[in-house]
């Protein structure tokens, strides 16, 4: 879920920047000889456990005080109170969060409402860190703090920060929402009064994901190491009499490879963050199976096409992501979706086209020519190369007799198994398997020649029947993206390029673009253990091409379409594109024409724009995609950083999106409330989640200046909190525990520094063991000389 860091900005008791004293540097070797034995002990300690001692000293906790934590320790959401030790926090009670998601056809709108409480008697500044899914476009934030309501506006990042700091210094309530990473956001809230309750509501827009016949949404609730669910396993049910038409049914034991995450004992650990989730699902088509994969849900069917889902156990701890999938009722999966939205004088279009599926029993219509490229550089050593080899041998075994293939291995050199692709005869396959099996991981990474070799196609232009697929497997960062993309763009011909990245390749974004340029896909495999499983899924997909040579054109209007180049479509995958149309006052006419080839048959679909249905937030999805396009163009140096920034800024400001360059900022001004007048229900511009009692949240005594007021004891607030959690965090106890560790701030009007706890850059290890080795060597030589001297004396005597 999220992390809220509250800091009481005290007169700072921080470690000041240290000026290191100039260190006398006694010659290490001389010192070592004197402290002969001592150094050996040190050397052994350093070689065996130097790092371990460093780590343990960092997590040490003073037993007399409440447990101090760092933001990095938080695995789920937390309210952290800044202690007087720099960088350490005390975990404070959290009160609850509600996720309300409305799915309308192809998009979803998420509304997150969170309630936090300041249990201290000081004024605090809160920093609130939370994850959202990667495609989410955040466009709205409202905040109710005590008796004030704040609606945020989009501003350029620096300007937003300046406005926020000015308000903060003036003692005004202010909120700032910034993007840290494309999927991590922070809210900073200044001047939360003693005992006040904070309600934050933010909204985002996101496309619904579709894979095969399954539509899905995910709500990330966990910060930090992500809980990795296995991919959705489906089996095909071809019932007799169905004339070859069947449907997917979910694997009967989808959890088989999953170990239930352990649940913390609330008596021993800080209470986990209770979350409620509700989803209104209006798929736009008759619904089949609706399934929540991580949480038990109760379901009410409103109509054939809509459902409402709620967590059946009420609030749950935010210890895993919420994942929902749904399918259409049998044989009712829509094959086309066309939606439009008018914003200003532009129309935004979102189109889904699922090509007619090949029957399961029918073999792939086109023979294939597959070129496997495998990276056997040194960094692939260990599990990676073993798994990669195993999956490659498996893939070779799956080739059909009419297919052709070749294998290329590369490190800083490369070898091509055959001069040209060969038929997949048993003898050739045995040959190839032996070649793969003998691969050893060593050497550097030089991708370009291997890619060029894979793209060299002697039958280019003559053979359009065969589907040429290049599977390029590497764990390296691409150093020369430009060259690689140029090579792919210039030489791709009829080849399709499927990039597979193993490990934490920093350039996965660019690998995606290499794959897109090559009209294939990018598969990222995070850990070596997943190589076999993911590769198998990829190879299965590659055997089932549905439509090739896909292109889309908007007829009748000037259009800005993204993505520009469309990939081939594989079984059940929809083609998704967004576009902005400029038509002025003219009526919406014309069409989107999608063309491609199914098997050997040309396929053409024309989507009349006049038939498009009103959708929501499409402009934001288009803008988000264009922002990503600009980032890529900048990385590829197609445009300069300044040009990219200009584009991103213009898009984000126009579409009210939080981005790398824009933030949402709110300063206490709406509504300006006379002193002593309470908020009424009508004043709250946000819908409180069901079960949140307005009177309980915003009622109670009024805050007097500088006095604890409006105090909402955590125990009174959400009725749905499990008793165990309420008991685990009695408010008075928290308050007394907290009091000793805090600096009290007398007034809210004093200017205060902003301590934004940004994610730290982790610094690499920057010490060599060269000196240790020299010392060790010298000691050994000395000992050797000593031994020789002793022997010499013995021989003489």
């Amino acid at each position, binding site marked *: 879920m999220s992390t809220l860091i509250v800091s009481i900005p005290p007169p700072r008791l921080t470690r000041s920047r240290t000026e290191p004293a100039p260190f006398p540097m006694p010659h290490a070797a001389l010192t070592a000889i004197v402290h002969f034995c001592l150094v050996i002990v040190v050397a052994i300690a350093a070689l065996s456990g130097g790092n371990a001692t460093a780590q343990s000293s960092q997590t040490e906790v003073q037993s007399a005080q409440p447990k101090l934590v760092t933001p990095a320790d938080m695995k789920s959401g937390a309210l952290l109170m800044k202690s007087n030790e720099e960088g350490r926090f005390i975990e404070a009670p959290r009160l609850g969060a509600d996720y309300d998601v409305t799915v309308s056809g192809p998009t979803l709108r998420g509304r997150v409402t969170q309630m936090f409480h300041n249990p201290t008697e000081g004024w605090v500044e809160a920093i609130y860190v939370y994850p959202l899914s990667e495609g989410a476009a955040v466009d709205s934030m409202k905040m109710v703090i005590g008796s004030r309501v704040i609606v945020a506006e989009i501003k350029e990042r620096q300007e937003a920060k300046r406005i926020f700091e000015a308000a903060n210094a003036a003692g005004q309530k202010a909120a700032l929402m910034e993007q840290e990473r494309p999927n991590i956001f922070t809210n900073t809230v200044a001047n939360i009064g003693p005992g006040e309750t904070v309600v934050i509501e933010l909204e985002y827009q996101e496309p619904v994901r579709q894979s095969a016949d399954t539509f899905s949404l995910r709500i990330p609730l966990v910060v930090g190491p992500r809980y990795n669910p296995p991919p959705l396993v489906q089996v095909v049910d071809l019932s007799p009499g169905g004339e070859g038409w069947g449907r997917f049914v979910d694997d009967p034991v989808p959890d088989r490879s999953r170990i239930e995450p352990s649940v913390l004992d609330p008596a021993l650990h800080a209470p986990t963050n209770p979350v409620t989730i509700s989803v209104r699902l209006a798929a736009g088509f008759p619904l089949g199976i609706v399934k929540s994969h991580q949480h038990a849900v109760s379901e009410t069917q409103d109509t054939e096409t809509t459902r409402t889902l709620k967590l059946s156990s009420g609030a749950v701890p935010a210890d895993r992501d919420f994942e929902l999938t749904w399918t259409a009722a049998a044989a009712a999966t829509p094959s086309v979706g066309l939606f439009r939205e008018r914003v200003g004088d532009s129309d935004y279009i979102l189109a889904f086209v699922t090509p007619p599926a090949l029957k399961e029993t029918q073999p792939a219509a086109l023979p294939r020519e597959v070129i496997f490229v495998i990276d056997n550089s040194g960094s692939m050593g260990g599990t990676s190369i073993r798994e990669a080899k195993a999956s490659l041998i498996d893939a070779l075994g799956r080739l059909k007799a009419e297919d052709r293939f070749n294998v290329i291995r590369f490190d800083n050199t490369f070898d091509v198994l055959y001069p040209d692709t060969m038929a997949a005869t048993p003898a050739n396959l045995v040959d190839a398997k032996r070649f793969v099996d003998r691969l050893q991981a060593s050497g550097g990474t030089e991708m370009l020649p291997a890619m060029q070799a894979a793209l060299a196609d002697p039958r280019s232009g003559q053979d359009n029947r065969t589907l040429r697929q290049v599977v390029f497997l590497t764990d390296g960062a691409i150093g020369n993206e430009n060259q690689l993309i140029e090579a792919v763009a210039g030489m791709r011909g009829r080849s399709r390029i499927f990039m597979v990245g193993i490990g934490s390749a920093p350039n996965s974004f660019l690998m995606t673009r290499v794959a897109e340029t090559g009209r294939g896909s990018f598969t990222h495999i995070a850990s070596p253990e997943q190589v076999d499983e993911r590769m198998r899924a990829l190879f299965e997909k590659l055997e089932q091409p549905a439509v090739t040579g896909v292109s889309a054109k908007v007829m009748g209007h000037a259009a800005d379409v993204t993505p520009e180049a469309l990939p081939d479509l594989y079984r059940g995958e929809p083609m998704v594109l967004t576009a902005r149309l400029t038509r002025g006052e003219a009526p919406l006419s014309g069409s989107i024409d999608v063309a491609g080839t199914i098997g050997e048959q040309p396929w053409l679909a024309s989507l009349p724009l006049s038939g498009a249905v009103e959708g929501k937030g499409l402009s934001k999805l288009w803008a988000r995609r264009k922002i990503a396009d600009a980032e890529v163009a900048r990385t590829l140096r197609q445009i300069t950083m300044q040009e990219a920034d200009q584009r991103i800024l213009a898009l984000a400001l126009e579409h009210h999106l939080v981005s790398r360059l824009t933030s949402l900022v709110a300063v206490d001004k709406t509504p300006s409330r006379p002193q002593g007048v309470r908020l009424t229900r009508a004043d709250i511009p946000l819908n409180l989640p069901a079960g949140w009692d307005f009177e309980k949240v915003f009622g109670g005594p009024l805050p007097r200046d500088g006095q604890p007021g409006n105090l909402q004891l955590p125990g009174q607030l959400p009725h749905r909190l499990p008793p165990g959690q309420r008991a685990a965090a009695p408010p008075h106890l928290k308050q007394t525990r907290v009091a000793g560790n805090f600096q009290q701030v007398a007034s809210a009007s004093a200017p205060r520094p902003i301590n934004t706890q940004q994610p730290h850059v*982790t610094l690499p290890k920057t010490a060599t063991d*060269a000196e240790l*080795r020299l010392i060790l060597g010298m000691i050994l030589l000395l000992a*050797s000389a000593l031994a020789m001297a002793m022997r010499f004396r013995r021989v*003489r005597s």
Partner: protein
Amino acid sequence: MKTEEAASVLATRRQGLHAGRIEPDVMFAAALAILGIAAMTQGGWIFAKAQLAQILLDRAFNESLATGRPVKPWSWADTWPVARIEVPRLGARVIVLAGASGQALAFGPGHVESTPAPGDPGTAVYSAHRDTHFRFLKDVRVGDRIDIIQFDGRKSQFTVMSTEVVQWNTSGIDAASPGHRLVLATCWPFDARTAGPDRFLVHAELVQLAVPDAAFAVVREPS
């Protein structure tokens, strides 16, 4: 030692060799000597590699400057030179590599991924070993000038504002912070022989920025 005695010792040893066995204490001493030489060679190799690599890096970097494209210093390298750091007062001059993996750091300072290039908005971080390339950091003083030339010809000039010791995982460096900053990081303390959690940081701020073929433009005067 008298000559006859020495001769008899040699004779004894020769006999031993002829008999096909080496006395255990000789073997022990020889093994110790071999291990010792091996350890010293390894230690020396680390320093030698750090020095030698810089020569190759310098050559590759100059080629980069001329062509404006990244050039690998040797064909099997996984990294390439991205910038040159110069501290004129100390006469220090060192080539920075892309990425701060352990492999790259053996050859030169690394530009920590996920941080911007120097001169771009945010905080750039260069990291290097305290006992090789960044040994000079211990002599850096507040007010020192740091010149950075990047492989695409961009030049920037920084001034050291402060130094600081932090833990490796709570560096307090925010790569996306406003301003144009540079941090040089290395292990601390400088005279320690074992790896520890502490890092020494040199904080610097941009004074001047120039793009290729353009005159230096003053961004701000150091206060």
